[in-house]
């Protein structure tokens, strides 16, 4: 039933010439427990099935969360939440699913997986993780990581994360990802053995490149601005939404006080009594309806948050481009200067400063043999340099091509998902209005009977 273990080479594919084919198999934003992980069968032709683990459709779900205690690296006791990941393969013919793998992972392991992917797929917009700590909370919602509602929403977020990877045409093939889903013990060691931490670009290097690069691809510069704007506007939106939710909660809950007072009042009224009492009941219903309404809205907020975090993923791709471009520019600069040196040595003119030139002036001319030797060394270096520059150029162009293809894919996904999210927001509002009409119509009837 399972495919043979994939080619180990697959695990270290930086920027292959991979056809990307059709995008993900309709990953909906409304988060389902079970969704498809693979590409559609038969789309995109042969290249899809080549070395593809997911020949059969698979379903991935993060089905449970459990509180655990253990000892951390400093041998101190800690409490954490573990998540159960279940993988099912779906028989194509009869649609039945069979559980193939089931293991527990904690948040830090998800982080490890993502950091690995970031290093090995710098040209891909890597899906973000759900937030580590609750942010943009309105006051009734707990900011506590152990709070069951937060854990539940995080469970859904982690499942979404895995589904995004599984439906990405390139990332889904990754061996480490496959092992994450299938190999419980030793997975961390396996990841660390890839040595990905060493391969990671240093933050300092990246920052340096950002400031000094002279000719980055304009599209990436624009993309960086876009991602900054996206982050800023979604943050703002989430903040205000939280405040609005807070206020709405207040409005609904205060009406609940009517319920109690009406009930007490009805005791002293003869004719008005019944009307008051039943109206009071409806006020209670109204007041308690807000809890579900706002819980639903929290899911909407989570959908927006995902794209807030995606902004950072976009910036990561831009940074990689800047780094590569800067590298290229430095190499070209270096090569140019060496060529110049060589030329000067050959013609005898000294335009560029060199230590050798200085010492020559101070201690006398060097011999023709010495000069020949130096020229030879330089020519070798120039040769090497030209080779390097060529390959860097090629690498750079490949990177730009592949990254931009993934960015286009991402844009389509983003537009689809956000449209769906906004529509689902409208649906929520409609439901809230209908409930409101219901309750107040009932209350009005009671009042008119008083």
């Amino acid at each position, binding site marked *: 039933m399972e495919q043979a273990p994939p080619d180990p080479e697959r695990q270290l594919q930086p920027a292959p010439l991979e056809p990307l084919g059709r995008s993900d198999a309709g990953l909906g934003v409304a988060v389902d427990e079970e969704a498809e992980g693979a590409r559609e069968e038969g789309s995109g032709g042969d290249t899809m099935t080549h070395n593809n683990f997911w020949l059969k459709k698979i379903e991935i779900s993060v089905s449970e969360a459990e509180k655990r205690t253990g000892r951390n690296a400093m041998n101190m006791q800690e409490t954490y939440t573990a998540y159960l990941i279940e993988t099912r393969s779906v028989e194509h013919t009869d649609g039945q699913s069979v559980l193939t793998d089931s293991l527990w992972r904690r948040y830090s392991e998800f982080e490890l997986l993502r950091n690995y992917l970031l290093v090995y797929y710098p040209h891909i917009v890597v899906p973000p993780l759900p937030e580590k700590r609750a942010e943009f909370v309105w006051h009734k919602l707990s900011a506590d990581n152990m709070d069951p509602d937060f854990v539940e929403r995080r469970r859904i977020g982690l499942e979404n994360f895995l589904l995004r990877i599984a439906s990405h045409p390139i990332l889904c093939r990754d061996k480490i990802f496959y092992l994450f889903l299938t190999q419980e013990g030793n997975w961390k060691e396996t990841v660390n053995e890839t040595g990905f931490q060493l391969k990671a670009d240093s933050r300092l290097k990246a920052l340096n490149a950002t400031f000094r690069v002279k000719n980055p691809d304009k599209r990436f510069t624009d993309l960086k601005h876009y991602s900054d704007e996206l982050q800023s506007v979604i943050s703002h939106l989430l903040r205000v939404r939280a405040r609005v939710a807070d206020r709405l909660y207040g409005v609904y809950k205060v009406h609940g006080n009517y319920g109690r*007072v009406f009930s007490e009042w009805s005791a002293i009224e003869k004719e008005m009594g019944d009307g008051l009492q039943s109206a009071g009941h409806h006020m209670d219903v109204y007041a308690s309806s807000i809890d579900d309404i706002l819980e639903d809205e929290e899911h909407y907020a989570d959908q927006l948050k995902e794209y807030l975090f995606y902004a950072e993923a976009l910036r990561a791709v831009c940074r990689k481009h800047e780094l590569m471009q800067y590298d290229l520019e430095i190499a070209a600069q270096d090569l140019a200067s060496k060529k110049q040196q060589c030329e000067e040595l050959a013609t005898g003119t000294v335009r560029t400063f060199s230590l050798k030139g200085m010492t020559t002036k101070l201690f006398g001319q060097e011999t023709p043999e010495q000069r020949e030797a130096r020229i030879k060394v330089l020519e070798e270096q120039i040769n090497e340099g030209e080779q390097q520059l060529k390959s860097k150029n090629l690498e750079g162009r490949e990177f730009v091509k592949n990254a931009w293809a993934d960015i286009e894919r991402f844009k389509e996904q983003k537009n689809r998902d956000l449209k769906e999210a906004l529509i689902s927001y409208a649906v929520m509002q409609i439901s809230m*209005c209908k409930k409101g009409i219901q309750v107040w119509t009932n209350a009005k009837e009671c009042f008119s009977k008083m």
Partner: protein
Amino acid sequence: MDMNSFSPMMPTSPLSMINQIKFEDEPDLKDLFITVDEPESHVTTIETFITYRIITKTSRGEFDSSEFEVRRRYQDFLWLKGKLEEAHPTLIIPPLPEKFMVKGMVERFNDDFIETRRKALHKFLNRIADHPTLTFNEDFKIFLTAQAWELSSHKKQGPGLLSRMGQTVRAVASSMRGVKNRPEEFMEMNNFIELFSQKINLIDKISQRIYKEEREYFDELKEYGPIHILWSASEEDLVDILKDVASCIDRCCKATEKRMSGLAEALLPVVHEYVLYSEMLMGVMRRRDQIQAELDSKVEALTYKKADADLLPEEIGKLEDKVECANNALKADWERWKQNMQNDIKLAFTDMAEENIHYYEQCLATWESFLTSQTNLHLEEASEDKP
């Protein structure tokens, strides 16, 4: 129709009052129309105060003209209320709006405060006009028709300050005794008043709180829509949908504003008036008790053969009449008041429910039309995709 040509010197016997009350509150019999408007600020060297214009239109014979326009300040209203209470101690006089603003706003002449007060004063005068007995009160007529100087001189004719103070002292002294001998029906009435007062005060607080929460919700919501517009500026594909969402939110915002003002119009003033009424009712109970206490103290004096025993029976006779009069007046007015209260409360809450229904219906229509337009768009796009 003869009822309305009563002369101001009508007999105050209990019987005639009860007869009168049977014909009360019919709209087509209304012949006195009063409006309170145009608040104006007056500045003198000593003080600053507000006057309100009062326009009276009437077809009653006892009025010299059919239309009157006068200006009155809050003090004048207080005076009128005092006179009515004096003349009819056990009738339920409509309440006046508070002297000072609750929650201590620094500016006494804040626009909202003035408007709220104006509406309450309008209500006050109209309630008096609608009251079968009070409407024919002489001081009331003078209040509505006299020029400023006429009113001032009329005011000075009343019992002096000292005698009024004496009355208060006696009232306090005898009020305790009155409670002991209170008839059953007035005990019931008193219980009701106490409980009603508690509940209406709570409802007043709750209603004010709801208004405050709705206002704060509105303030936050105003910011929410525009963010979507801001967002649309950096998007290509999502521009339209984001702008549509923004406009939906803005429309809901307007609906919220309307709901708020509806609450302020229909519910808050009514509930608050009944808070003041409940205080008024307690005062009425006290005055009734005091009248009874006077009788009781004389009866006691007779029983224990205290001084002036031969004069007492006659005094007692008069006081018994007075007590019977007061009790009957109160009983009749109580029934009338309760009926009005039920109607007013019922109307106020029904209006509140109606405002909320209307609010949710507006918001529903907004979002549903958004959804429809999105679905239509989607169908358009789908058909475009087909070659």
